[in-house]
């Protein structure tokens, strides 16, 4: 009985925040479009502050290890010999290897510590540009064929670039104007739309149920979900991208997967990154 009451209170609270604060946002919004990213971000931060009173918001960059004490210890031990180290080394070598025209990645990205600039909305191209896209743009500028977005090579490059970008603070510009707001809204809607046979939205698990256990597995908060990619996962036995992880969650609930770097996933990354503004980049990371 007591349990049921606690659960009831929890659900009520969630009802009022309702899947990433849509009602809250429209109540407090004074923009014509009714989209108010600042209010969304504040509502989400307030929600997690209440949900995890002992966890500083910045700490969510460590995913479930921010609050799962048992798992955190194992993880810290694992970090003594980081399983992504080889990927970072390989990535450094790839980064320094010149293209056929004698130029290379350093001509596009300097020392490679540029992760904090992505994703951003590019007004000229009218779309969200991610680090992976920028890597292929750089290659195209120098006459090189694009890398496959789900391949080993690009993930090693991003592992290296994430590593040298550690400590940069996520600072996605406030989405303003038609294009950025539409991309933001699409990402937000993706995150809070129920899909698949099991009828889950991303927010069902990572907002409504954040901190709970699904069987033995704790659920991470949305804040911090973008800070630490690529990730070495023991399940994958390799480093993999954020968009690969999106697809794993999608297929868990029986929903359609999207190609990595599809417009859907770039908008999703843009929305989640704006939510995580203020958190430090700490990739690559290791996860179960």
């Amino acid at each position, binding site marked *: 009985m007591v349990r049921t009451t606690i659960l009831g209170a929890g659900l009520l609270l969630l009802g009022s925040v*309702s899947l990433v604060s849509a009602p809250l946002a429209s109540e407090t919004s004074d923009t014509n479009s009714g989209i108010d990213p600042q209010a969304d971000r504040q509502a989400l931060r307030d929600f997690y502050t209440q949900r995890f009173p002992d966890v500083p918001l910045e700490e969510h960059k460590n995913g479930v290890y921010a609050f799962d004490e048992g798992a955190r210890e194992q993880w810290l031990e694992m970090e003594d010999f980081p399983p992504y180290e080889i990927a970072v080394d390989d990535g450094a070598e790839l980064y320094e290897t010149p293209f056929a025209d004698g130029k290379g990645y350093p001509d596009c990205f300097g020392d490679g510590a540029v992760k904090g600039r992505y994703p951003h909305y590019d007004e000229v191209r009218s779309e969200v540009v991610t680090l992976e896209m920028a890597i292929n743009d750089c290659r195209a500028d120098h006459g090189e064929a694009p890398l496959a977005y789900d391949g080993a090579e690009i993930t090693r490059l991003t592992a290296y670039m994430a590593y040298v970008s550690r400590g940069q603070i996520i600072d996605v510009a406030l989405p303003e104007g038609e294009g950025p707001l539409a991309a933001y809204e699409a990402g937000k809607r993706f995150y809070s739309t129920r899909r698949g046979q099991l009828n889950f939205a991303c927010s069902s698990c990572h907002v*409504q149920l954040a901190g*709970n*256990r699904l*069987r033995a597995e704790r659920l991470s908060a949305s804040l911090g979900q973008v800070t630490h990619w690529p990730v070495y996962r023991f399940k994958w036995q390799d480093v993999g991208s954020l968009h690969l992880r999106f697809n794993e969650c999608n297929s868990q609930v029986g929903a359609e997967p999207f190609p990595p770097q599809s417009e859907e996933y770039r908008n999703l990354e843009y929305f989640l990154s704006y939510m995580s503004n203020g958190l430090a980049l700490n990739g690559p990371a290791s996860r179960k």
Partner: protein
Amino acid sequence: MNRLLALILLFGVTGWMGTQAETGEADLSALERGKAIAFDRNAGNCLSCHMMDDGELPGNSGPPLIQMQVRFPDRAVLRQQIWDPTIRNPQTVMPPYGKNLVLSEEEIDLVVDYVLSL
């Protein structure tokens, strides 16, 4: 007298046979089938959210499923909760097992009977 005895014998015998063949073995295995569906990660996977029976490593998002006959005196209400829990609570995270064809109607009946036995 003979007729009465014959009747008693007849009912006695069929009753006994019924216990063995239907109520006994058949119902027990039906409950076990319901339990298997409820526990299976690729079927009900109810354990991912509910503590129930002797299930290991249950999740904690839904209430523990205990004393179900007391909580659900009306079987139809329980069946609806499993068929489509969003009818009762549109915000719920519990999947609509019947509406979204996660489980067949027959499987849902087996799960309902099993849950009522808890």
